[in-house]
């Protein structure tokens, strides 16, 4: 891969195959994420989108295929090299995954304390800045359990942003939030994007968010990518599932159950 390519594409996935036992969850995924864009992975429940995300951040090792981060093979790295790469990544978890035993401020400060040799006073200031960024200034002494769901997600975002990452991953950012809070989070994601020129990868099934935050979208179904492009390109697609997804039409009664059964048994 040439240097130029590496600059254009922050993440490149080649022929990714992931299996749980005998069941193939992701089957030959190929995608590239450009520097500075927000890339949305869209799909129904159980289509493998969370699995794809877990592979991208290295929480799972794929069965075969490669993932390149900034042109370097992430799948073949030693644990130490992976840690270096991870310092440049941030991730927002579905349930925020804040450490419940620490205050919000300590949560945000943790990566700084562990990975940098900054003075405690500097860390404190940086923590305050990050919390301010997500609209939670003054909440550093609260425990995560004392915050609402939306606030926890914001705090999770502040923690993900603590090390000033290049790439940020969001797992279902609006899941479990009411529409107003979800919209607030969407605009926060957009704001982060514009302010810091981050590359973002968002996993979601929330159609309302996609148009607002996504530059490009890929649609997953049954472990394969069935469509990729801008929102308009995807909308214009004649793939029946994409049409169905966009129009929110339900599966015909019965077919859904048969599909589901097949997906959990792995049989054809």
């Amino acid at each position: 891969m040439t240097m130029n390519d590496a600059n254009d594409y922050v993440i490149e996935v080649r022929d990714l195959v992931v299996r749980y036992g005998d069941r193939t969850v992701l089957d030959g995924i190929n995608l590239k994420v450009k520097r500075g864009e927000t890339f949305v992975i869209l799909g129904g429940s159980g289509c493998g989108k969370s699995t794809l995300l877990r592979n991208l951040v290295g929480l799972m090792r794929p069965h075969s295929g490669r993932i390149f981060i900034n042109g370097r093979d992430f799948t073949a790295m030693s644990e130490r090299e992976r840690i270096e790469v991870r310092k440049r990544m941030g991730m927002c978890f579905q349930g925020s995954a804040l450490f419940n035993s620490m205050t919000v401020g300590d949560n945000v400060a943790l990566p700084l304390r562990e990975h940098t040799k900054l003075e405690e006073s500097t860390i404190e200031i940086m923590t305050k800045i990050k919390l301010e960024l997500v609209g939670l200034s003054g909440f550093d002494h609260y425990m995560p359990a004392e915050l609402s769901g939306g606030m926890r997600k914001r705090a999770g975002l502040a923690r993900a942003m603590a090390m000033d990452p290049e790439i940020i991953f969001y797992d279902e950012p609006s899941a479990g939030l009411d529409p107003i809070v979800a919209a607030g989070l969407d605009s926060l994601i957009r704001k982060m994007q514009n302010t810091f020129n981050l590359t973002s990868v968002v996993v979601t099934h929330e159609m309302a968010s996609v148009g607002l935050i996504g530059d490009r979208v890929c649609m997953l179904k049954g472990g394969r990518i069935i469509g990729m492009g801008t929102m308009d390109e995807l909308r214009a697609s004649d793939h029946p599932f994409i049409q169905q997804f966009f129009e929110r039409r339900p599966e015909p009664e019965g077919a859904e159950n048969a599909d589901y059964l097949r997906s959990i048994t792995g049989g054809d």
Partner: protein
Amino acid sequence: MISMIGRIGRTTLNGVYALLRVCVLMVDTLNWILVAPLRGRGLRVRSTIEHFVEFGVNSLPIVALICFLMGAIMAMQASYQLERFGATRYIANLVGVAAMRELAPLMTAILLTGRSGSAITAEIGTMRVAEEIDALEVMGLNPTKFLVAPKFLAMILAIPCLTILAMFIMMLGGFALSTVVLHVDPKVYFDQTAGALVMKDLVTGVIKSFFFAVVICWVGVYRGFQVEGGAEGVGKQTTSSVVTSIFLIILVDMAFTILFYFV
């Protein structure tokens, strides 16, 4: 028939895999305790001290109370037989040796299993369910370094300390009951105890307690990382942690008792 053989094979394989995973965890933990700090990759001293306080200092009242009562109970039960021979003074020997060699290490270990082993499993399990372990990894923080190493170090320091205290408290229990209820002369009781005990009793007791600590911590951690699903998974693994831990403690106890009998 074939299905039965298959089942036996699968169970064995699963057992072997579990053992392998425990070994990997052990090596990883030892690496983070012994090797990594020398290479300047840091041991979490603060967290270790906090855990030591939790496992050791905070367990002391309950360990002390139970061991005191156990000592008294032992003295009472022993007098039931020894009184018939007018040999109540030998209660001191019995309580002393039993406490040092067996009961103090065992009671401490079982109490700590219930109090701290279960807490370790529940904590790590809950963190797994809430994706906190994943969050650590994504941040480039090693969960073994961050969560396991401090607990392990605290546990192997706390349990031997508690055990030594428990030994003396248990003898104190026996002493109190013997002198107050059974009217054994305090001086005689003391001399009997001092005469009966040898250094080996203390050493074997402490060595055992060290391995009990290893068992409690590793079972607790291993079960914690095994949690799947939600709150139900945490409950299931916590129960299993306590049961496995007590079972293994008895096995280790057995092994060492045989070993020390011949050595």
